[in-house]
């Protein structure tokens, strides 16, 4: 049996970041990936954050296969055929040090794996890890699906993605429930660069993101997104599994309904669909986080439920957690303390970072939208109706118009409900 200092299960951003930082600290490190090469099994909406990536690979933008730097973030509410939009644009984000880029994961993850290899990481592909290897209570490696496929390690880092088979087997992660995961589907729609840039009002090479709420998910908890790649759009929709089951929508019908919305239809018109993808998103937040460590094991990325759905952040939480885990693994190996207590340094560092702080801050959010479904259905409708009334120029006086609007608002949502909604939203998001 070949022995390593660190075995990383899974070659996504979390696992590769972990491997890179462990190798940089002098650890003999291997990544075990089930795809043909890192990237071929990996899916996300498509936003990669500069700060977290730069911490793993300095000046990555000079050589990484990136699509476009994001200079504009647009947010919208859909209600029927109506659209309410807001956005922020700053061209300074088109230059280093940037804020975020759109990426296609097959290309990006492969590149990140190459950086890991340059740092001395060994990458074993087409191999599924089946279980941890124990000696007594101590984890001493992994069992793979290959014949004589046992590999020894002092520390195993679980970066196996949202399905978290090994973390569950090891009793670290709880079973996922329909109210802690979202199903997301997306399409890659090819469009000529010039057309794409014109439609999104972008200078050559610049990128934009759009997140759409409300009827983009038929009022279910979730979001839809449109991101600009070099010569394609990533368009997708993710909805929590529980309402998806209840409302009997299929993921593809949700996506087709989104594509048929007047605002969306015009953005993707004439494009050619190149790929259809699906993925689960861990949406359980702070309350559904698994145990992050045990003797000889650390848990990172999606496996650790590290997704901040409200701010559509995930890849950055994954990479930051991976980097910390790689560093802590090296530190524990060097000090010889691989006990649960010794490995808890990782959890401590995570709690001190924005990763767990943000998840903690929004810990009430999931439950809030469950108990206040009006936010994703009734409020977009109210807002759209109000704007429709307000912007319609006819012979109604503005004073009368405001009265009409207030009347409409209270017809759709009682005053008591409004107060409780505002308080609930404040508590779930701002407090």
């Amino acid at each position, binding site marked *: 049996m070949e022995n390593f200092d660190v075995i990383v299960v899974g070659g996504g951003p979390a696992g590769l970041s972990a491997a890179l930082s462990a190798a940089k600290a002098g650890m003999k490190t291997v990544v075990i990936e089930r795809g043909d090469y890192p990237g*071929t*099994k990996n899916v996300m909406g498509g936003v990669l954050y500069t700060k977290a990536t730069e911490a793993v690979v300095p000046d990555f933008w000079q050589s990484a296969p990136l699509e476009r730097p994001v200079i504009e973030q647009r947010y919208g509410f859909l209600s029927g055929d109506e659209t309410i939009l807001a956005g922020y644009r700053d061209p300074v984000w088109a230059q280093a040090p940037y804020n975020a880029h759109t990426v296609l994961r097959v290309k990006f993850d492969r590149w990140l794996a190459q950086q890991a290899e340059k740092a001395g990481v060994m990458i074993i592909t087409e191999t599924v890890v089946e279980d941890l290897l124990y000696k007594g209570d101590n984890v001493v490696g992994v069992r793979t699906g290959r014949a004589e496929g046992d590999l020894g390690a002092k520390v195993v880092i679980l970066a196996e993605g949202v399905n978290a088979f090994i973390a569950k087997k090891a009793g670290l992660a709880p079973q996922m429930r329909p109210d802690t995961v979202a*199903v997301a589907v997306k399409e890659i729609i090819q469009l000529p660069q010039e057309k794409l840039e014109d439609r999104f009002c972008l200078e050559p090479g610049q990128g934009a993101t759009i997140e759409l709420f409300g009827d983009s998910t038929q009022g279910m908890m979730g979001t839809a997104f449109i991101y600009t790649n070099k010569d394609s759009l990533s368009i997708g929709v993710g909805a929590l599994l529980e309402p998806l089951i209840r409302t009997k929508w299929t993921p593809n019908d949700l996506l087709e309904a989104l594509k048929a919305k007047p605002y969306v239809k015009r953005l993707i018109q004439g494009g050619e669909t190149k*790929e259809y*993808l699906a993925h689960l998103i861990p949406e359980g937040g702070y309350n559904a986080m698994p145990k992050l460590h045990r003797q000889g094991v650390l848990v990172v990325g999606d496996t650790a439920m590290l997704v901040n759905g409200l701010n559509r952040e995930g890849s950055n939480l994954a990479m930051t957690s991976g980097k910390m885990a790689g560093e802590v693994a090296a530190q524990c190996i060097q000090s010889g303390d691989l006990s649960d207590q010794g490995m808890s340094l990782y959890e401590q560092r995570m709690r001190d970072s924005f990763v767990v702080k943000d998840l903690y801050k929004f810990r009430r959010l999931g439950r809030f939208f469950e108990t206040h479904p009006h936010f994703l259905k009734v409020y977009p409708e109210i807002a759209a109706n109000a704007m429709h009334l307000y912007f319609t120029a006819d012979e109604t006086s503005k004073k009368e118009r405001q009265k009409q609007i207030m009347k409409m608002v209270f017809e759709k949502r009682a005053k008591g409900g409004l107060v409780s909604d505002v308080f609930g939203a404040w508590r779930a998001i701002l407090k």
Partner: protein
Amino acid sequence: MKLDDKLYLVRFNTDTLNHIKIADAAVCLKCQDKPCTRICPAHVYDWDDEEKRISVGYEGCLECGTCRVGCPYGNILWGYPRGGFGVSWKNG
């Protein structure tokens, strides 16, 4: 765009071994809602009315894992295909 046309765009390295199993076909008979036939993004699961069982088209599985979480009876034993098999994204 129809789902079948979209699935046609996906690259697979299909295994001869089925990586999905229905634990107990009798459970599906009792299941009224059969959410697996809707929630799977690739429509891998279909109710076969003649044979009175769920048919599983594992070859088209996109490996998201939705079925495993969504089956109200935990009756779908879904795991990853063997290393190197299954979906192989072109863009991701």
